[in-house]
């Protein structure tokens, strides 16, 4: 067991009790600080270095084949603490071969940036790795409507990200090859 040693507090001397020497020391410190180098970042001209894992504006991404990854499972909508996400699900036409094996895609996908708290739950919960809080951090508009990011805006912000799984492509190729029985 660690033993706690109580150290007696040294009584203050008279000068210490006036606090004046300490005040003077403090004044010296602050004064010397005035001439040190400034750390302010001149924002619009200078941009900050975005650290890894930065949580910027949530965006939708496409896979390297330029297909939308979101399948509108609405998990992000469910998990979103401020209820900023609103999805209208829709079906992918059977004839649409570009979407590999997916049958579902969002008809409309809205993120209300006035509500978004940048918590990143949507990115964490996304089973398709379709939504990412990327490096974009400045989001502004003149009206409330402008601050609701629609699907096309979200894809424009998100761009294309590499994909390590190609889950649906694999399903599609499995379908094309058929069963080996």
């Amino acid at each position: 067991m660690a033993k706690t040693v109580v150290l007696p507090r040294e009584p203050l001397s008279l000068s210490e009790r006036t606090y004046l020497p300490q005040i003077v020391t403090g004044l010296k410190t602050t004064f010397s600080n005035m001439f040190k180098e400034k750390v302010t970042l001149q924002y619009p001209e200078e941009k900050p270095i975005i650290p890894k894992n930065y949580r910027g504006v949530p965006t939708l991404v496409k896979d390297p084949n330029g297909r939308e990854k979101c399948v509108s499972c609405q998990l992000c909508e469910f998990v979103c603490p401020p209820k900023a996400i609103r999805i209208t699900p829709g079906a992918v036409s059977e004839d649409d071969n570009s979407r590999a094996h997916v049958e579902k895609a969002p008809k409309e996908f809205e993120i209300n940036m006035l509500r978004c708290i940048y918590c990143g739950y949507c990115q964490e919960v996304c089973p398709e790795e379709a939504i990412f809080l990327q490096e974009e951090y400045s989001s502004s508009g003149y009206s409330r409507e402008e601050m609701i990011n629609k699907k096309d805006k979200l894809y424009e912000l998100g761009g294309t990200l590499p994909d390590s799984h190609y889950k649906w492509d694999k399903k599609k190729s499995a379908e094309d090859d058929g069963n080996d029985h």
Partner: protein
Amino acid sequence: MLDFELLFLVGLKVLFALLMIGAVMTMAGYSVLAERKVSAWMQGRVGPNRTVLPFVEYIPFLGPYLKKMGIFQPLADGLKFLFKEEIIPGHVNKFYYNLAPIVALVPALTTMVVLPFGEFFTSDGESIPLMLADLEVGILFILAISSLGVYGIVLAGWSSNSKYPFLGSIRSSAQMISYELAMGLSLLPVFLWVSEPGTGAMGLSLVDIVHSQGNAPWLLLVQPLSALIFLIALFAETNRLPFDMPESETDLVGGFHTEYGGFKFGIFFVAEYAHIVVGSAIFTIIFLGGWHFLPWVADPWPSTWVGTLIGIGWFLAKTIFLIFFFIWIRWTLPRFRYDQVMNLGWTKLLPLALLNLIFYVLLVTWIDQPAS
């Protein structure tokens, strides 16, 4: 029949008054800038450096420098206050609510009536102090008027009909009363000292105090304890940190002006800084030798209008340094808790001021003993 001379004099005084108001207000405005700049520098930041007037930017060297120093920032701040939406909350007492900022500003501006800021030499070498009114009881006037400032705060807190402003104003009034005493007591030894021994002429004139420090030690050196008590009391009276009980951003949101916004808030803001400016000037006059050069050193400038201007400049320099000192203290010391403020005022400063007074009474009595 009109007395043109009187009219002229009155007109002149009004002009002077307006000039003074302009000067003090400008200084208040730039104190705000100074506060922002100095605090920024102390914190490793750069402070306001964006605002600029059209075209000024393109003046080589100077333009960018002015911009960098934020010289036009007070202008923007003032305009912002002016153009902001005037919000009057529904739950306030409208009349007093509107009255409060005025009540707060008026005393701050009134006190400068008696402030001497330089001297003018007539052709026959006579020195005329530069001030709006040379009252015999100048210091009493200042103490009397400046303590009126608390009414603005109390009024604001009460009329806001809201708990934080109310708490802020109560604290403010308590604080004012607590430190008023120490402040007054700290000044008495000064006047004891300054009065010509043996003449019996008890001058409370600020001009006399300044004059007494010409080619003589400053009162700061003669009566350092008085100066210290006065300075602390001055901080408390101007509600500056570490005595910012009325505002207490940390625990009372905004204190007495929580419910204020826009121009009315701006007036409070200006009043606060006007207090600082005036307070600094008073301290300069009483303890730092006013417009006189240095302790024990005669003014090196000629007794002409040039000397007058240099004197005014020197006076301003001292005042500005004090304003800087106010800011410096603010960004150095942590703020007191309310009970600590009371404790310091009543159990430390007041006894100290009394002891100080007694000591100087005895000292002066001993000095004044007719040589027998």
